[in-house]
Structure formats: C-alpha cells, structure tokens
C-alpha cells in the first residue's frame, strides 16, 4: 500500500521534484537567513565571547551595550576590590583609537587595554607571539583578520597587493608609536574593526585625553559565592552595574534587537521563505493529488477506507518534507563551510535546524490538510467516468 503511494509520488517526476525543490528552497531560506541573523547578533557580543575569564563585568549603570563605553574614575577599581565576595578585580580599557597607515589613510581600531600586571582579558588564541610580550615597550597585539586586511601595509601603488602586518612592524596610534609583538585570533565583531590589544597604562597614553578612562572592571567571584549576590553587593556599595558574561551578552543583543532594523529585515525574509514554501508545495501537491485521483479512486472503489488513503498521503508529504528540508539545510550549511573565512556572519546553533524542521513539518501538514478534503469527497465512480 505504501509502496503504491511511493510509486505514485516518485512516478510523477515533475511534480515530485517541484515539491522537493519547494521544501528545499524554504528550508534553505529559513536556515540561512536565521543563521546569518544569529551570526550578526553573536558578532555584537564577540568581545564578551572572547573574554570568558571574568565572572562579572562591572561598568557604569547607564551602559546600554558592550560597545557603549561610559568611563569611570580609576578609584572605582579599588572600591570594587573592597566588595565582599570579589576575589580579584582588574581594569580594562576599551575604546576606539585611530591608527594611521603608511599611505596616510586612517583606520579606527578597537583598542583593548589589559591590566598591566596580570594582562587579564587577553586574546583567547595567539597565532604568533605570546600575550606576555605586551610587557615590551610600546607593544601591541593585533588580530589576524586586521593584520591581513584593514591594517595591512599598502603597496607602492593602489593596485599592488597589500603586505600583511608582521611581528616587529610599527603602527601609529593617535600619533604614538606602537610595535606589533603578536598576532591574535579573535572572534569577529559587529563593526569588524581591527582589534588592538595593549596594556592599560599604554592605552591611557594612546587614548585621546579624557578625565575618566576606565571602561570596565573585570571581576572574579570568590569560589562558593553566588554571582548575582556579589553583583548586587557591588551595585549597592559602589553604585556601578555588574553583569555576568551571559547577562551582558543579553543586554547587548537586546539593544541591537530594539534599536536596529536587523530583526525586522531578517524576520521578513524568513516569513517570505515560509510562505513561498507553502505556496509552491501546497499548489504542486494539490495538482499532484488531482493527477492521481484515478488511482485513489480505484483504491477507494476496491474498498480502501478514507484513513488508509490519508496515511498514504501523509507518507507522501512527509517524504517530500524530509528529503527537501535535508537538502535545503545541507545547502545552507555547505555555504557556511565554504565561506568560513569570509566576512559572512553565519552561526547555526542547534535550535535553527530544529525550527526549520518544525517549519517544514508545518508546511507539509498544511499541504496534507489541504489535500485531504479532496480525497474525502472523492467518489469511487470517478474511475469509470474518465
């Protein structure tokens, strides 16, 4: 019986491929668009992702997201250190400083100033050199993508290829000399600015003059202490806001969701993908059922009950759904594997395939319900009329 259903389905090559194409297209659009959306959103928190060591991030309570720097007084660090339950606290500078390249163009860099003695908050992986090289005079560590791209040394003519930045090369940060002592691998950030790591005191020197320069205080909570309790204590004693890494990520992502058009744009794309799927698959399946009315009529005339015919249709639609969504999601994943080293923001957590499968299931269900009506009303006598 199911074999007949399969033969019916696959035998009608044109419709079969059209339906699979429809489902595949829908799942490709849903998977790809939502993965790019999640990828873009996760880039906004790339810096927090790269700095998993501290338990708490302490900052001005008015900070809206991780790139929204509201500097504090240096003595706030001492106050945070004095809060009960804080194991250690170190300063972190984060700010934008202009670098001048050899050909005279300016490039805004994201400068991270690490605590001088401990270098807490350093890059997670080093491609060349070590973090402790930041102890050298005027030293900075540059991220790999920038060293090969935005900060690479331009050739003698605009057409000639750029030379990647190497260890030992000089940079000009806000009219200060800086020596590259290492290349780091960092997660790309939303603005895709080059990331330059240096020490806190050197960042003070590079940074434009401001009265307050302390961007964040990174704190570790004593073992056995509850993060939220200590965070609340920091807030009560110093008036500063303390967030855990995931909380700060949430804060940042919520800011981008609320204040940028990104979620609406991607939401529309995903929604359109879904409706295109419903339209293609629904219509094709409907005409497929119409084509096969003959066979269904014969079966009905032979005494097959409605529910037998239903289960045949369900097998047909779900086969189409399974094949199509597998192919669609596969193509989406394949593009991410191919474009791994490009600027494409693609991040697929396990929830996305699950949601895609649910969406294709919904499409097939809608299609099934759509077709069932026709089968119920089918009179066995139709066979003999044609």
């Amino acid at each position: 019986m199911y074999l007949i259903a399969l033969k019916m389905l696959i035998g009608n090559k044109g419709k079969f491929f059209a339906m699979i194409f429809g489902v595949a297209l829908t799942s490709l659009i849903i998977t790809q668009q939502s993965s790019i959306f999640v990828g873009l959103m996760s880039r906004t928190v790339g810096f927090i992702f790269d700095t998993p060591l501290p338990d708490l991030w302490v900052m001005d309570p008015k900070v809206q997201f991780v790139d929204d720097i509201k500097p504090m007084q240096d003595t706030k660090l001492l106050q945070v250190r004095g809060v009960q339950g804080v194991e250690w606290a170190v300063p972190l500078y984060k700010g934008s400083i202009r670098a001048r390249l050899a050909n005279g163009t300016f490039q805004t860099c994201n400068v991270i100033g690490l605590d001088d003695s401990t270098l807490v908050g350093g890059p997670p992986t080093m491609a060349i050199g070590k973090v402790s090289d930041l102890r050298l005079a005027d030293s900075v560590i540059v991220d790999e993508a920038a060293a090969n791209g935005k900060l690479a040394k331009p050739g003698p003519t605009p057409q000639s290829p750029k030379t990647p930045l190497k260890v030992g090369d000089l940079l000009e940060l806000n009219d200060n000399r800086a020596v590259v002592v290492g290349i780091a691998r960092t997660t790309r950030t939303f603005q895709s600015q080059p990331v330059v790591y240096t020490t806190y005191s050197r960042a003070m020197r590079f940074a434009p003059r401001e009265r307050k320069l302390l961007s964040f205080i990174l704190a570790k909570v004593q073992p056995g202490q509850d993060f939220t309790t200590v965070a609340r204590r920091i807030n009560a004693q110093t008036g500063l806001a303390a967030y855990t890494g995931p909380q700060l990520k949430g804060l940042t992502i919520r800011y981008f969701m609320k204040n940028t058009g990104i979620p609406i744009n991607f939401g529309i794309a995903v929604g359109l993908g879904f409706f295109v799927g419903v339209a293609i698959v629904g219509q094709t399946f409907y005409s497929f059922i119409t084509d096969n009315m003959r066979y269904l009529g014969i079966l009905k005339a032979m005494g097959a009950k409605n529910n037998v015919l239903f289960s045949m249709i369900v097998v047909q639609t779900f086969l189409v759904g399974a094949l199509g969504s597998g192919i669609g999601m596969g193509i989406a994943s394949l593009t991410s594997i191919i474009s791994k080293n490009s600027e494409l923001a693609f991040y697929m957590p396990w929830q996305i395939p699950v949601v895609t499968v649910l969406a294709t299931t919904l499409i097939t269900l809608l299609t099934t319900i759509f077709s069932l009506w026709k089968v119920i009303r089918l009179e066995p006598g139709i066979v003999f009329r044609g």
Partner: protein
Amino acid sequence: MKLQLPANINLPKFSTVKFYILPVASLFGIIFVIRTVIAGSVPAPVAPPVVEPARPPYASFVAGSGIIESISENIAIASPLAGVIKEVYVKAGDPIEAGQALFSLDDRDVKAELEVREAQVERAQAQVQDAETQLSLYQGVNDPRAIMKGEMLKRESILAIARASVAEAESQANATKTTLERMTVRSPINGRVLQSKARVGEFAPAQVMTNPLMVVGTVSPLAVRVDVDENDAWRVERGKPAQGILRGNTEIQFPMTFVRFEPYVIPKRSLTGESTERVDTRVLQVIYSFDKNDLPIFVGQLVDVYIESSK
C-alpha cells in the same frame, strides 16, 4: 489489509537508481548540518592571566593601592646655597650616617674671601698691638704733667677700637667659615641614598625642585603609603593589619603594621605619566610599615594593599 492495483492499471515507471540520489543528498545535507552545529558550539578558549591577580587575604577588607617609601619619608635634599657642584661623595644606594658629607659646591670664591677675612683679622691684631705699644709708652711716662689728659684718653680709645675691629674681623672670618661649611651638604639622617641626580659641574639652585638633587631615607623598615578612596575611607580602622601584594608577582606578599593616618585627605592623581596629571577624587592616605628582609622590593614600587576591616 493488502491493497493491490488491478493489473491493467499501470503506474508511471521510475528508475530506482535515480530515486536514491535524493535521499543520499538529503542525508549528506543532514550530516553538514550536524557538522556546522557542532563546529559552531565550541566556546572560546579561556586565556589564563599571565600573572595571577592579587587575591585578598581577609574576609572583609578595604582595597587600596600603595607606593613604597622609606619610613622617614623620602627626604629631598636641598642645597642651602646656590652654586656649581664641585664634588659628589656618595652614590645612589650608599648607606649614610647623619652628618656625612653628600656633595659640596664650588667654594673657591668663599675660600679667597676667607683669606681676605683672615688677613683682616691679622691686620686688626697688628693694630691692637700698635695701640697697646703706644698706650704703654704713654703710660711709662712718670710725670703726669708731660702728657695732656686728652692725649692719654685718645690712646686708650684707639686701643679699644682696635680690639673691637679684631672681634669684628674675627666674626666676619667666622661667618665666611660658616658659609664655607654650608657649601658641603650633609645627610640629616642615618639611612640610604635613594636617588642621586647631583653631578659634578651641574648647578644646584637653592630652592624647591621638582626633581631633587638627592633623595635620602631610611630603608629598614620600609613604609607603604596606601591610597584609599574617600568613599571607602570610613571603613579603614586604626591599627588593623594589612597585606601588601607586589605587582607583577602576587606570590610576593608581606604583612604590614599600621603606623598612622595622614590626617589630611588629598586629591588623588591618576598616574598617567603625563605632565599634567588629572585630579579625579580625593583619597585618604594611610601609612603602613613592613620589614624588607630579603624581599626584592624597592622604594617607589607600587603594591596592591588589602586592609582588614570589620565594617
């Protein structure tokens, strides 16, 4: 129930080989999906701190940052007179005793003046002798009628004046000697030379200098000047112990004993190394002392300080 279509009804033909392409493609697709999901779920490696950050040794404490100084406080040696440095007797790091010569200024002019002054003393003494001789000649005359009374008095006053000029010349010579003495700068305390910027041939002005010629101080025991933010100042209690942790190596820790509060709360300078340093807040300074022993600690180094507090 087994259903079978009548033999005369033929379903369209399909090739089995072609049919398998789609499930295989779908299977590969699912494998790619799983691969991408797994590859994306790897968390960033945790970069360990290069040096372990300082951890507080007390349950409840006030944190501060301290600078190591000598217990006598660092004495910026001044020159009492302006002049060119002639000789420097000590180097940075030398142990010194109170009264030991540190450096001396060019004293040739003062020495020449002293010679003049001493010659003046001699001349005055010669004049006294002359006056004495004159007076004794007059006094040797036995007949009082031979000498006028006034003449006699005049000789006596000449002698008195001559004696006074000796005293004057001597005190002038002594004043010059004192000046000469002041041209050698001596240590006010027993201790150690912490810094020496005095070099032979340089000019030493007799005024307050931002870069003093020489800094001396007592190095054993050492003191730590701890800055505590004004908002935390009420939590610092007199006499509570504190722990100092050296920057750069948190294993170098030393207990410290309370010495005193600096009673005046001062504006903190954020040490940015710039010539115009920014004032951000006010800090209470607390002085603690500790024994240096074999610790590799130098005056002027920064330390993280935790002061025990019950509040």
